[in-house]
């Protein structure tokens, strides 16, 4: 990485190398298929992980790349979930179009909200995202006729994917569907972070004060990424509604907003895979710890979080990447 560069072609190759697929990545995606064969009883958990990982990627795009701290992103997850659920209750259960509409809906709301988000920074930004999350939660609670309020949204039925694959009770279709959406959104996000736009986002994160001085309209960059992030969060929410056939208020809850940030920090921000790894560790740990003691499982998560933040400032994946780089 530190070799001197003496020609523009080498500089370009250096940039290109940074976005090349590594064997680790291919292995990783092959490994996501293992639950189908070896752990079929864990397919529902695998489905939860795929959905939460997609949500974590949406947060990584704004928090890890653009540096926007949010504690209210469940707002878009929940909007997507309710949108997908409600159109299904009202007779449109086709999953793919329903999911796309849910993502689009969350993305449009995200774009509108982005005009507010780009006006504030630091603590005020966190408070605004938090406040918007609370507002959305209470709105869904109050609109009982539409959302089912605290009873949750009932009566969702999702049609077979492509008219072929019915959602089975073991979760084969659910996980396959969620994994496919996760993979496609990952490809899109990967492309995005390796583009000039991804570079501009890192510029914003690294020094927002310099951006206007290089002629950048950084607020329009922020609005775009916020809308894209909201749309991906909406897709994740839509997946939850479609694969579980229920939407509860907790899809909009503060816990969901906070947990996703914890997952991201565990795995490591600003590297996409950190979002997936962190989600995996968080949800598997919760599953196992809840098996030991259903009441105090957050104790274990708290310990894990402390260890990671204190000893692995770039998250577990950042820590692993450093070990691999040293070994070379």
């Amino acid at each position, binding site marked *: 990485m*530190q070799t001197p560069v003496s020609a523009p072609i080498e500089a370009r190759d*250096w940039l290109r190398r940074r*976005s090349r697929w590594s064997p680790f990545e291919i292995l990783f995606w092959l490994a996501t298929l293992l639950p189908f064969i070896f752990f079929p009883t864990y397919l529902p958990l695998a489905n939860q992980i795929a959905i939460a990982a997609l949500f974590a990627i949406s947060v990584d795009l704004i928090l890890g790349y653009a540096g926007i701290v949010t504690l209210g992103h469940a707002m878009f997850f929940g909007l997507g979930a309710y949108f997908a659920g409600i159109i299904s209750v009202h007779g449109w259960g086709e999953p793919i179009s329903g999911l796309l509409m849910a993502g689009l809906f969350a993305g449009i709301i995200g774009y509108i909200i982005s005009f507010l988000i780009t006006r504030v920074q630091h603590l005020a930004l966190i408070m605004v995202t938090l406040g918007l999350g609370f507002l959305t939660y209470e709105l869904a609670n109050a609109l009982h006729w539409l959302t089912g309020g605290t009873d949750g949204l009932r009566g969702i039925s999702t049609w077979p994917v492509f008219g072929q694959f019915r959602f089975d009770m073991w979760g084969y279709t659910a996980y396959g569907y969620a994994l496919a959406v996760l993979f496609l959104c990952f490809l899109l996000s990967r*492309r995005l972070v390796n*583009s000039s736009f991804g570079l*501009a986002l890192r510029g914003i994160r690294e020094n927002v004060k310099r951006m206007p001085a*290089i002629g950048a309209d950084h607020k329009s960059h922020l609005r*775009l990424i916020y809308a894209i992030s909201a749309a991906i969060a909406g897709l994740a929410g839509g997946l939850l509604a479609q694969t579980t056939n229920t939407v509860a208020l907790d899809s909009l809850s503060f816990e969901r907003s906070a947990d996703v940030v914890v997952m991201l920090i565990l795995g490591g921000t600003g590297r996409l895979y950190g979002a997936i790894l962190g989600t995996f560790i968080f949800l598997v740990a919760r599953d196992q710890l809840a098996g030991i003691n259903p009441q105090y499982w957050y104790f274990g998560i708290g310990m894990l979080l402390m260890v990671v933040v204190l000893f692995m400032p770039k998250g577990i994946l950042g820590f692993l990447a450093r070990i691999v780089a040293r070994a070379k």
Partner: protein
Amino acid sequence: MMAGEDIVLRATGLTKNFGKLDVTRDVAIALPRGARHALIGPNGAGKTTLINLLTGQLQPDAGRIELEGGDITALAPANRVRLGLSRTFQINTLFPDLTPIEAVTLAVLERQRCAGQFWRRLASHNEAIEESFTILGQLGLADVATRTTRTLPYGQQRLLEIALALATRPRVLLLDEPAAGVPKDESAALFSVIAALPADISVLFIEHDMDIVFKFASRIIVLVGGAVLLEADPQTVRSDPRVREVYLGRGHD
């Protein structure tokens, strides 16, 4: 300035108060094309404030700023940069985790208005990367193009400040103490890089070292207490008794 000269940047009647403190008082400056002007004055004279007013980080309470004859007084900083008015910062204002090639390419892409293209690979913007590499080469940074900015020696970070500004293709470049914190022998080298900038770029720089000012500036603006005390060629400034009293009197032969 004489009439009929090709003035690129002109400010008239610039005034700025912070509460009761007048930091800029009725300042008029005119930068001709290709200028190498120095802005000097004692600490607190309002030099950085003047640059902040010209580049739009601050809004003046009164006055007018024109770039190539167009009124830019109300424009946002980024829009002024796009019209060709760039600056550097006295305190490094870089992108610590980016490499120089990334940072300068970003500035080039922002100028070309294609930084928002999220579907196209960064490495496919060949011309932008090549241009960025050429700029880094001009400033002697080609060898460190792919090193993380935070790991670069301080002097090279100061050069990267200038590289970022150059990537915006400025007509006017305002350098706020480009050699701030750089050892004296290195700062001469840094200023020879500045002197070698394309002749059609107009440069206004703030600098405290009088040897460097007299060596590199063709004209000097002396700012005292927020107002222009004198604008003249180096010889006149050197021999002006008022300048000697308020500025050169302390610590200079």
